[in-house]
C-alpha cells in the first residue's frame, strides 16, 4: 500500500492507497502543530484501513514549497519511515497535488495557477496547462508581481484577493489526491528533497562593536 502525507501548508494530511483506491485519509488543520499531528495521523490512517506498518510498500511525501519547519517534519518522517520499512520514498511537488485535484475533480478546465501561503507577504506559485501539467514554477513571489486574471487554485489566492480575482478548486492539499496522482501517474515524481526556494536567513556578523 502507498502511504502519503504532506506538511507544506497549515494542513497536515495523510492517506493510504491500496493500488485501487484510497482506503483511508485524515487531515488536521491546526497551524504550527505539524510535529505533533503527523505521526498520530499516520497511525490513524493505518488503523482505519485495518492495515499495519508492514503493509506499506511505498511512501509519498509533499516536498513543498512550504514553510520550512513544517515541511521538514514531513520529509524527515518520510525518509526515516522509508529507511526503517525498506520501501521507496517518492517526493511530489505540493502545488502539483493541488493542481491534480483541481483538474481531476473537474473544478478547473482551463490554464491556471496554484498559489499557497509563503508567509512574509509572499506566495509560492506555479502555472499549469488545462490538463494540470506544470508549465512554470514553482517560485516564491510578491502577490502584486504575480497579479493575474487567470484562475488561481490554493489558499494563497484567498489571502490576496486584490491580485488574484478568480479563484477555484481546492484551498489546501489532500494526501488522498496525492496518492491518486502518484498511482495514476498524474504528477512527476521527485527525490524527497525539500523545495525551500529561499536561502536561510543568516548574516555574517559585522566588525566587532566596541563596548566602551
Amino acid at each position, binding site marked *: 500500500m502507498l502511504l502519503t502525507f504532506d506538511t507544506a501548508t497549515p494542513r497536515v494530511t495523510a492517506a493510504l492507497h491500496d493500488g485501487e483506491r484510497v482506503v483511508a485519509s485524515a487531515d488536521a488543520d491546526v497551524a504550527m502543530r505539524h*510535529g*505533533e499531528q503527523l*505521526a*498520530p495521523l499516520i*497511525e490513524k490512517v493505518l488503523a482505519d484501513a485495518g492495515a499495519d*506498518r508492514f503493509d506499506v510498500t511505498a511512501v509519498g511525501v509533499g516536498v513543498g514549497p512550504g514553510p520550512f519547519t513544517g515541511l521538514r517534519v514531513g520529509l524527515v518522517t518520510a*525518509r526515516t519511515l522509508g529507511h526503517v520499512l525498506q520501501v521507496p520514498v517518492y517526493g511530489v511537488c505540493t502545488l502539483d497535488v493541488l493542481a491534480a485535484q483541481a483538474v481531476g475533480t473537474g473544478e478547473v478546465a482551463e490554464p491556471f495557477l496554484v498559489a499557497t501561503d509563503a508567509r512574509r507577504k509572499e506566495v509560492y506559485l506555479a502555472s499549469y496547462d488545462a490538463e494540470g501539467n506544470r508549465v512554470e514554477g514553482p517560485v516564491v513571489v510578491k502577490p502584486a508581481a504575480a497579479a493575474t486574471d487567470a484562475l488561481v487554485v490554493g489558499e494563497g489566492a484567498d489571502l490576496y484577493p486584490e491580485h488574484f480575482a478568480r479563484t477555484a478548486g481546492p484551498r489546501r492539499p489532500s494526501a488522498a489526491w496525492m496518492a491518486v496522482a502518484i498511482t495514476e501517474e498524474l504528477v512527476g515524481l521527485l527525490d524527497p528533497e525539500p523545495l525551500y526556494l529561499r536561502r*536561510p536567513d543568516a*548574516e555574517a556578523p559585522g566588525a566587532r562593536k566596541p563596548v566602551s
Partner: protein
Amino acid sequence: MGRVSRDEPLVLGIETSCDETGVGIVRGHTLLADAVASSVDEHARFGGVVPEVASRAHLEAMVPTIERACETAGIDLRDVDAISVTNGPGLAGALLVGVAAAKALALGLGKPLYGVNHLASHVAVDQLEHGALPEPCIAMLVSGGHSSLLRVTDVTGVGDGTPEGAGVVPMGATIDDAAGEAFDKVARVLGLPFPGGPHIDRAAREGDQVAIDFPRGLTSRRDLERHRFDYSFSGLKTAVARWVEARERSGEPVPVADVAASFQEAVCDVLVRKALDAASSEGIEDLLIGGGVAANSRLRFLAEERAAKLGIRVRVPRPGLCTDNGAMVAALGAEMVARGRTPSSLDLPADSSLPVTDVLAG
C-alpha cells in the same frame, strides 16, 4: 509490542537540539555507538549557530547518521527495544527534526518512544563511562547553551510529587550569558576562531591566570544573598573586551595568552566555587560535570583539586560525551526503560523552553 528487556535495554537516542545531529546506541550502561554529524563549519562564518542552517543540516544528516550508528554498533534497527529523543530545551526547528524522525522510527519499528530532557541527558551520559549514577548528586552543566546547577535525586525525573522533591531540581543557573557563550565572545575579542572554548583553553596554557584580575560574577556578599547558586558572565565578558580595547588604544600588543588564562580562571573559579557550595549545602558528596565546557582542562583540574579537600567526588565524562550527542539521549532512554517509566505518546511536542524538571514527556 515486543518484549522489552528491562535489565540491559538496547536503546537508540536522537539529539538535534542545536547544531549536532547525534544518534547514539546503548545497551544498558554500555555505549555501542555515538554517531555525530555537525554543521558547526557552516555556522563558523556567522560567529554563532544559525537556526535555519542547523535545521536544514539535521534533515540531510538524519538517515545517514542513523545508518552509521547501527553499523558501528553492529545491530539491526529492528533489534532496538526503544527510541529516545531530545524534545527540549533547544532550538525549536532543530528539535522538531529529531522528534519527527524518532516518531517515524517508533512507528516504523513498533517500539516505545521516550521524549526526554536534554539537560537530564547530559547527566545520564556519565553512566556510560563510570557506571550507575550516584544519586543524589549535584550536576553542573556548562556549555554554549546552558549553565545550570541541578540537584539530581532521580535522573528519570520521578520525585516525591512536590516541586522541591522532583527528581531533577534546578538550584541555580546563569542570569545572562551561558558559560560557553562567554568563551565564544571572548575568543572573538581575542581574534580566536569559533567555537571559542578549545581555542581559549589552548591559548591559556601559555598564559598567566593571575596576570589580570577579571571580575567574578555574583560572588559579592550582597549578590550571594539572592543569587547564591546563580551565575553571571556578561560583566566578565565586557570587562575583558574593555581591557583589550584599552590595550589596543594605547598601541600596546594584546597578551592573548594572559588574557585567555585570566578570563578562563575567572569563569572556572566561579563555576567550581558555586558547584561545591551547592554540594556542601545539600550534604551531597558527588559532583557531576557535563556540557561542552566540561572539556575545559582548567575546569576539570580546579574542580578535582578543590573537591578533594572537601571530600567530594567529581565525575566528568570524557570530552566526546560532554558535548551534545545521541549517546546521552540513549543513556537516559535506557534508564527510562530500566526503571519502568511510561513511554511518551506519538503526539509529544518539541518544547524549546522545556523546564529541567520535565524530564520525560507524557
